[in-house]
């Protein structure tokens, strides 16, 4: 199904966020809320991609850092840093996760005509993580493939794999 979507992109209502110096678009309909940075509890031995937990109105929600998956710089949080709480499909199950954003821009409609398939070459990111690339105001907006990014094996084999149970090893 996602395959079909990749070939026939539909126009999407998207929330645009900035990660490092790139603009990303996530499906606005799946966004629950946008929070200021809250205290993050570090999960020892967890992959960097999902290294923290946050409290969202009494729920414990994993905090994902997409910048890890795209191998980007990870600037320190500043006054623009936000957490986008949204629904993502993990192995087909809808799960609530927080996404760290360096800045949240706006909600916009990206026309189908302006969405292109990610080029297979000449890109510094893993192509399977990108659903398409939209154009707006002469700039590019990356539409990440959240399902692929949050696929369990992908999440677990994140770049940094801390070995668990150090004394036992």
């Amino acid at each position, binding site marked *: 199904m996602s395959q079909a979507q990749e070939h026939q992109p539909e126009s999407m209502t998207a929330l645009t966020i900035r990660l490092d110096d790139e603009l990303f678009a996530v499906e606005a309909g799946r966004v629950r809320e946008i929070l200021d940075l809250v205290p993050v*509890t570090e*999960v020892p031995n967890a992959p960097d991609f999902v290294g923290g937990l946050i409290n969202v109105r009494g729920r*414990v929600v994993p905090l994902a850092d997409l910048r890890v998956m795209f191998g980007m710089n990870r600037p320190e949080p500043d006054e623009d840093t936000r957490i986008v709480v949204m629904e993502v499909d*993990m192995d087909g199950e809808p799960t609530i996760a927080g996404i760290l954003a360096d800045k949240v821009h706006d909600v916009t409609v990206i026309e189908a005509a302006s969405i292109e398939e990610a080029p297979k070459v000449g890109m510094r990111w893993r192509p399977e993580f990108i659903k398409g690339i939209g154009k707006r105001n002469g700039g590019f907006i990356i539409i990440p493939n959240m399902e692929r990014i949050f696929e369990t094996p992908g999440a677990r084999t994140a770049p940094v794999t801390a070995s668990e149970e150090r*004394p*036992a090893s």
Partner: protein
Amino acid sequence: MNISDPTETFRQEARELLEQLEAGLLDLEQDPSNGDLINSAFRALHTIKGSGAMFGFTAVAEFVHEFETAFDQVRKGQSHANAALIEVALDAKDHIHLLIETPEAQVDGGEAILANLRSVIAGGAPSKAVSAAKTPETAASTDPSPVPVVKSTWRLEFYLPSDALIYGTNPILLLEELAQIGPTSVTALTDRVPELKALDPEVPYIGWRVDIEAEDPTAAIDDVFLFLRDNMELSLTRLDTPPASQASAAPAQTTTAAPTEPEPVPAPKAAAPSASASSPSPKPKAPAGADSADRAGASSLRVPAERLDELMDRVGELVIAQARLSQIAGLSSDTALKTIAEELERLSSGLRDTTMGIRMVPIGTLFSRFRRLVHDLSGELGKPIEFITTGEETELDKTMIERLADPLVHLIRNAVDHGLESAEKRAAAGKPAKGVVRLSAVYSGAEVSISVTDDGAGLDTARIRAKAEENGLITPETKLTDQELHHLIFAPGFSTAKEVTSLSGRGVGMDVVKRTIDGLRGTIDVISRPGEGSTMTLRLPLTLAIIDGMLVRVGNGRYTIPLAAVEECVELPEGIEAHAKGRNFLDIRGALVPYLRLREVFGTTAEPEPHQKVVIVSSGEGRVGLVVDQIIGNNQTVIKQLSKLHSGIKSFSGATILGDGTVALILDTAHLVAAGQSYVDRNITGRAA
């Protein structure tokens, strides 16, 4: 949807009643003369019949009616409950279940079951064969064709209890039921209807006079009013005098019938003025039971499970908010605030316990289902089995119990099918012919362990090995201990059954069991002794959504340890650092306890406290010391499951939200103990080498 669909409500209720019926029948098999059991089975039938008719399940109502009529012979002591009767009654129960679940489907076989039932009952009491066979006919149809017995006209006058309509009694249905006893003529008695302004529309003022032509309608009338008899006015008189030749026979019949009633009780109180001493219908014992059923109905409530989950979430949030309040109050010097914070703490912990209690269900509800399973398997496989259950009162979270049903069915089937040997083999091995399957549940620390034990042949390690090699799970060179071999049965697609039976042997059993148990964050273990049998033990967390926890600090992170697992806290002796590389054991009153430095486990880089503490935790047999920087104190911990993103990290069993709103991880003590233990093993073997 749960609320608005009455047929679904009926189905649910019927399912429970059928379960109750089945349990009653199985108990009856053990104790055939127990009147209470017979009555409770009878009541279950009667309720199913009544509500079945009410909700349009006519096929159900008709079948149950026949079943009930036949079973009534047993209730009256005219027939006896024996194994054959129980067998056919169980078939009948299954048939009812089928009728209820698939009302649109044409389910056959009902007539055959009834015929069986009647013949079994007739066999039990040959002298009553005629009446047993006849009663259904006369009851089922209003066919007035005379039966060659004495019929006379009986006058029944009754006034319903004033609250009858409120409880849903439909007088029309009662009259229709009466009409099934024999040809009736009905007159309404309006003498008690008050003036319009005094009239309460919810009170049935009208009484009825019903003239019935029947042989002796006493028992049938009792059945009609089974649930109303306590508070209603009812009188029954015989109008015509039968011919002299039969006059002597009829009273004789009533006198013989009377002693067979289980417990004749005095006639209903406040009988109508016309009540005559001639026929005080003996009050069956049922009303007493109906009473208790009514009471149970009033004191128990059916609530959709989602609402309980919602309640639990709310209470969880309340507990968190309360913890924050307590924290703020602790810093304040305002005594009024402190008082109210303490009050709230007490209240919320009470509320927490109550809410938890609602969700906890004794595991006995699950165990009783398996009795039927074993009963059927025993018959099917021709293996006599004694099924012993213990620890039914052990309580587990409801959702947990539901998810345990399938795995336990698998384990019990395996025990019966693979575990127990055939009767001949048992005899050859010098074992009693009757195999024993034991199902037990017991609390162990913060866990519940449930085990299925059989006294059969035990696991055949040679066959497991052969099968595993055949399936490519291991190579012939692989050296495995017996314990490791036993664990191979949990591998996917593994089955040693030589041939596929309907019960087991498709190789989809044990790995599914293991997966389910893993999903519940439990473990499964197998112990087997050749010739003595095997035991499968499931260890499950109570998954109380809220537990008492001990909050500790490691580096900058705070973690919660389930208090139930904590044995004691000690200081990490100074100078032990010097040997840190060599031996990580503490001497706790002479016993060597391994310890794990959580700072190392978690890769903490923050500055360590000069005086580190050790929290000794236990799980099952093992103990381990967890070295932490600081012990902060106890707190109520609302367990939140970690998402799939973090489920791979075994050190943590969940997370919780602390008083200040931050998240703290809950340590998985069982896993840490195992890690510590394996460390010990390696250390000892390492030193020995």
